[in-house]
C-alpha cells in the first residue's frame, strides 16, 4: 500500500465513528454499533499492516515506518477487543453508542499520531486522541465522581498541553522549521534554550502517558470513571503517545542533558508508581499507579537509547513494551468492569468463574514480568538496553520495583484464589451474566498476551530489529 492508501485506516475508523454517532438508527442500536465498529477496526488492521515503510505523504507531514505499522495494528486490534466486549456489556445505566463514537475518534487521532513527523500535525493528532478521552472518563453524567475525575484529568492535561505548546513554539522559533528531521539537525547548536524547549515539550507527553511527576490526574480520574472507559483510555491513546515520544526523543537526542531528564522521570515514575500502588484497595486506582510505574520502565529504554547516542534497540524495546503492557492492562480493567471496582470484589472469582481467574493470573504475571509472557520479554529488552548504556542504577531500581510490584498484584491473586468467602462484600446483583462476545474478548486478550510473549522475536523483527 502506497501513497494516500496510508491514511485508509484513519478514513475507515472516522467513517465508523460517524456511523456510530447515528447508531440510534441502526437495528439493535448499542450492540450493532459496537459490533460494526469492531468489524471496521479489524478491516482497518489489514490495510494498516500492508503499509510500505518509509513512505511520506502530504509533503512529509505523515511518514510510515515499520514500528508505526506494528503500533497501528496493536491500536486497532485492542480497540476491536474493547468494542467486542462493549457490544454485550455496555455501560450500566447508560447507552453506549456515543462511547463507541468517542473511542473511534480517539483512535483516529492515535493512528494519525503514529505517522506524524511534524509539530503541527502532531499537536492536532495528540489533542484529537485525548479530547474524546475526557468525555469517556466523565461518561456517566449523573455520577459526580466521574465528572470530578474528568475535570481533574482535563485541567492537568490542558495545562501540560499548553506548556508543551509553549515548548513547541520555541522549537519552531529556534530552528525555523516544524519537521522532526530538520529540527534534529538544527537543535544541537541552540544550547540551553534548546534543552528548555525540549523539556517543556516532553512535559506534555509525560502527562499524557502519566509519567511522574505529572501523574496526579491518573489515580483520581481512574477511580471516578467507569472501569470500561479506563480500560480504553489507559491503553489505546497511550500506545500512540509512546511512539510519538520516541519520535520526539529521536529529534532531541543531540541535545546534551536530555538523557538525565528521561532517567529522572523514569526513576521517579517507577518509585512513586509502585510504592503508591501498595496500599490501594480500589483496583482502578491500583492500576492507575501501576500504569505510572510501567511508564517508568518504558522511559528506561528511551534514556538508554539516548545515552548510547541513538541506539535503535532502545527505541524498539520501548515500542515492544508499550504493546506488551497494554494488552494485559486492558483485559484486567475489563474484568474489573464486570466484577466490581474494589480488590475485595474479586473474592471467590476462582470458584465463580474459574477460567477468568486463571486468565487474570496470567495477565498479572505478565505485568510483573515472569516468563514466558509478553511482559517478561519487554522488561528484558528494556533492562538490556539500560545496562548497555551504562545506566545500571536505573535498571537496579527497575528490578527492585518489579519485585515490589508483585506484592500488590498478588493481593488481587489472593482475593481471587485464597480469600475466605466471608471477606466478600455483599453483591447486589449476584452472578455476572454469561455473555459469549465479552468472554471472546477476554480470550483474545489472553491469547494475545501469550502470543506476544512466545512470539516476542517475531514481533521484534516486525518492528525492524536486525
Amino acid at each position, binding site marked *: 500500500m502506497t501513497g494516500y492508501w496510508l491514511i485508509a485506516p484513519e478514513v475507515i475508523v472516522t467513517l465508523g465513528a460517524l456511523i456510530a454517532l447515528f447508531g440510534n438508527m441502526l437495528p439493535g442500536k448499542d450492540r450493532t454499533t459496537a459490533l460494526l465498529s469492531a468489524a471496521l477496526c479489524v478491516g482497518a488492521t489489514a490495510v494498516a499492516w500492508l503499509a510500505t515503510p518509509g513512505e511520506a505523504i502530504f509533503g512529509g507531514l505523515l511518514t510510515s515506518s515499520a514500528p508505526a505499522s506494528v503500533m497501528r495494528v496493536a491500536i486497532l486490534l485492542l480497540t476491536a477487543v474493547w468494542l467486542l466486549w462493549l457490544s454485550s456489556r455496555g455501560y450500566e445505566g447508560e447507552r453506549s453508542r456515543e462511547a463507541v463514537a468517542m473511542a473511534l475518534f480517539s483512535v483516529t487521532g492515535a493512528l494519525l499520531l503514529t505517522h506524524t513527523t511534524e*509539530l*503541527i500535525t502532531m*499537536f*492536532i493528532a495528540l*489533542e484529537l486522541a485525548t*479530547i474524546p478521552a*475526557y*468525555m469517556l472518563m*466523565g461518561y456517566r*453524567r449523573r455520577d*459526580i*465522581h466521574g*465528572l*470530578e*475525575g*474528568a*475535570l*481533574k484529568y*482535563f*485541567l492537568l492535561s*490542558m*495545562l501540560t*498541553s*499548553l*506548556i508543551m*505548546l*509553549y515548548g*513547541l*513554539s*520555541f522549537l*519552531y*522559533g529556534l530552528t*525555523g*522549521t*516544524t519537521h522532526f528531521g530538520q529540527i534534529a539537525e538544527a537543535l544541537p547548536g541552540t544550547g540551553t534554550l534548546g534543552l528548555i524547549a525540549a523539556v517543556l515539550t516532553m512535559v506534555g507527553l509525560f502527562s499524557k502517558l502519566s509519567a511522574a511527576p505529572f501523574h496526579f490526574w491518573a*489515580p*483520581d*480520574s481512574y*477511580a*471516578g470513571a467507569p472501569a470500561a472507559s479506563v480500560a480504553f483510555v489507559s491503553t489505546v491513546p497511550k500506545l500512540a503517545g509512546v511512539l510519538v515520544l520516541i519520535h520526539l526523543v529521536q529529534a532531541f537526542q543531540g541535545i546534551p542533558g536530555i538523557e538525565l531528564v528521561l532517567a529522572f522521570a523514569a526513576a521517579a515514575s517507577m518509585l512513586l508508581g509502585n510504592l503508591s500502588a501498595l496500599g*490501594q484497595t*480500589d483496583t482502578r*486506582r491500583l492500576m492507575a499507579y501501576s500504569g505510572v510505574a510501567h511508564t517508568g520502565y518504558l522511559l528506561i529504554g528511551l534514556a538508554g537509547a539516548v545515552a548510547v547516542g541513538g541506539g535503535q534497540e532502545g527505541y524498539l524495546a520501548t515500542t515492544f513494551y508499550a504493546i506488551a503492557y497494554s494488552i494485559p492492562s486492558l483485559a484486567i480493567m475489563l474484568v474489573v468492569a464486570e466484577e466490581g471496582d474494589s480488590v475485595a470484589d474479586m473474592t471467590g472469582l476462582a470458584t465463580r468463574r474459574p477460567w477468568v481467574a486463571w486468565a487474570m493470573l496470567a495477565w498479572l504475571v505478565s505485568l510483573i514480568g515472569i516468563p514466558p509472557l509478553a511482559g517478561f520479554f519487554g522488561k528484558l529488552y528494556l533492562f538490556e538496553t539500560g545496562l548497555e548504556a551504562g545506566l545500571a542504577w536505573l535498571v537496579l531500581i527497575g528490578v527492585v520495583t518489579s519485585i515490589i510490584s508483585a506484592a500488590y498484584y498478588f493481593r488481587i491473586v489472593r482475593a481471587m484464589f485464597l480469600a475466605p468467602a466471608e471477606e466478600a462484600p455483599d453483591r447486589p446483583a449476584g452472578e455476572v451474566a454469561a455473555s459469549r462476545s465479552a468472554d471472546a474478548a477476554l480470550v483474545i486478550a489472553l491469547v494475545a498476551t501469550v502470543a506476544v510473549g512466545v512470539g516476542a522475536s517475531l514481533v521484534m523483527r516486525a518492528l525492524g530489529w536486525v
Partner: protein
Amino acid sequence: MNIGLEAFLGLSAVLFALGLYGALSKRSAVMVLMSLELMAVAVGLNLVAFSRFVTPEAMTGQAFAIFAMVVSAAEIGLALAIVIAIYRHARSVELSALERLKG
C-alpha cells in the same frame, strides 16, 4: 522605533507566567479555565512573532497559531460542559468542593 523579536517574546512570557500562576492558584474552575486561555494566547503570540521574525516568507507559525487557537477553543468548550454538569450536582464551581476522590 523598531520593535524586535525580544519584545514580543517578553510580553508572551509575562502572559504565560500570569496564566500559569492563575491556573495553579485560583479556586474557581471558571477562573482556572480563563487562566488557561491566557496561556493559550501567550503561545499564539509567540508563534506569530517567531513566524514574522524567523521565517517571514513561510507562514508556518501563523498556521500553527490558528490551529492551536481552534484546538484550545474546542477544549475550553468541552471543559465548560463538564463544569456545568458538575454545577448541577454540587451547586458550586469551586475546586475545593471537588474532594470526593482522594488517596
